[in-house]
């Protein structure tokens, strides 16, 4: 009887160990996974149309998020849109405009480190968890009572 209990208990502990190993491996895989992100440079205005015909209105999901924020602008136009894949290997730097650059690094577990540069000068570096559905908006005022926004959201 004691031997049988010992065998069963050993089997249970083995299952426990396998679960731990599986979780650890899953966590390592999650830490090493690549993230696919979308970065958009957006111009915010109260005008109904952008003077630049190449500017397109933002997608509905981004518009909804921006309208939920305490911003005074009503219309948002995409100046530039970039897709990037970031990993834990190293940061990815991408120019959103002639003066605006972002550098993104996956620090693991869906958390990214985002650095924003204006005219090559670092403005902000932020570390934030960015699961699907989470959006990070960096912004500032621009001439003519408008604003610029860099919207970062995770695609995969």
């Amino acid at each position, binding site marked *: 009887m004691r031997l049988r209990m010992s065998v069963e208990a050993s089997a*249970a502990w083995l299952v426990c160990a396998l679960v731990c190993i599986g979780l650890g491996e899953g*966590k390592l895989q999650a830490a090493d996974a690549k993230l696919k992100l979308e970065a958009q440079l957006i111009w915010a205005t109260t005008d109904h149309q952008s003077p630049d015909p190449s500017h397109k209105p933002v997608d509905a999901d981004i518009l*909804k998020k921006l309208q939920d*924020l305490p*911003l005074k602008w009503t219309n948002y136009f995409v100046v530039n849109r970039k897709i990037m894949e970031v990993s834990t290997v190293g940061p990815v730097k991408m120019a959103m405009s002639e*003066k*605006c650059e972002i550098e993104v690094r996956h620090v693991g577990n869906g958390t990214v480190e985002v650095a924003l540069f204006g005219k090559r000068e670092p403005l*902000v570096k932020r570390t934030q968890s960015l699961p699907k559905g989470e959006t990070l908006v960096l912004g500032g005022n*621009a001439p*003519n009572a408008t604003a610029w926004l860099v919207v970062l959201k995770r695609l995969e």
Partner: protein
Amino acid sequence: MIDYDLQLKLQAHLDGELSPAEARGIQARLARDPEARALLAELTATTAALADFEDGRRLPESREFFWSKIEREIHRDASSASPSAALPWWAGWRRWLVPIGTAAMVALAGLMATRPGLAPEAEAELADPGAFTYRDYTARTTLVWLSYPAEKEFPADDGSDTMD
């Protein structure tokens, strides 16, 4: 050589347990079989010897009742000797509950560590002292508002230094 059946019948004859017909048959066998007679004599001597050792004590109750008490004691001892019958129903699960509980705690810790949180942990190094952060938990949106480039620094007719 006397067979086993005959030995039993001789014992039964000695105890007076045979029917009259069987008793007559045994008597006939004893008359012609000296080996059977010798065995009967031996059994008779043994019975007499054992009878001398009996103290003649009588039970205060019937034999059946006395035996039933012994039988109950035997069953009670047998049931108390079985540890599984005395333990509660969940006792058998204890050896499973400890490792399963440990695995569940590890799994929960792993999920908490890997699960994307509703309120993401964030830290910012701001080069812009006028910047602030706003978090909309419902929309799952974080806004970092910078004072760069300040509007007053860029006249309306000069968009050369804006981010766009």
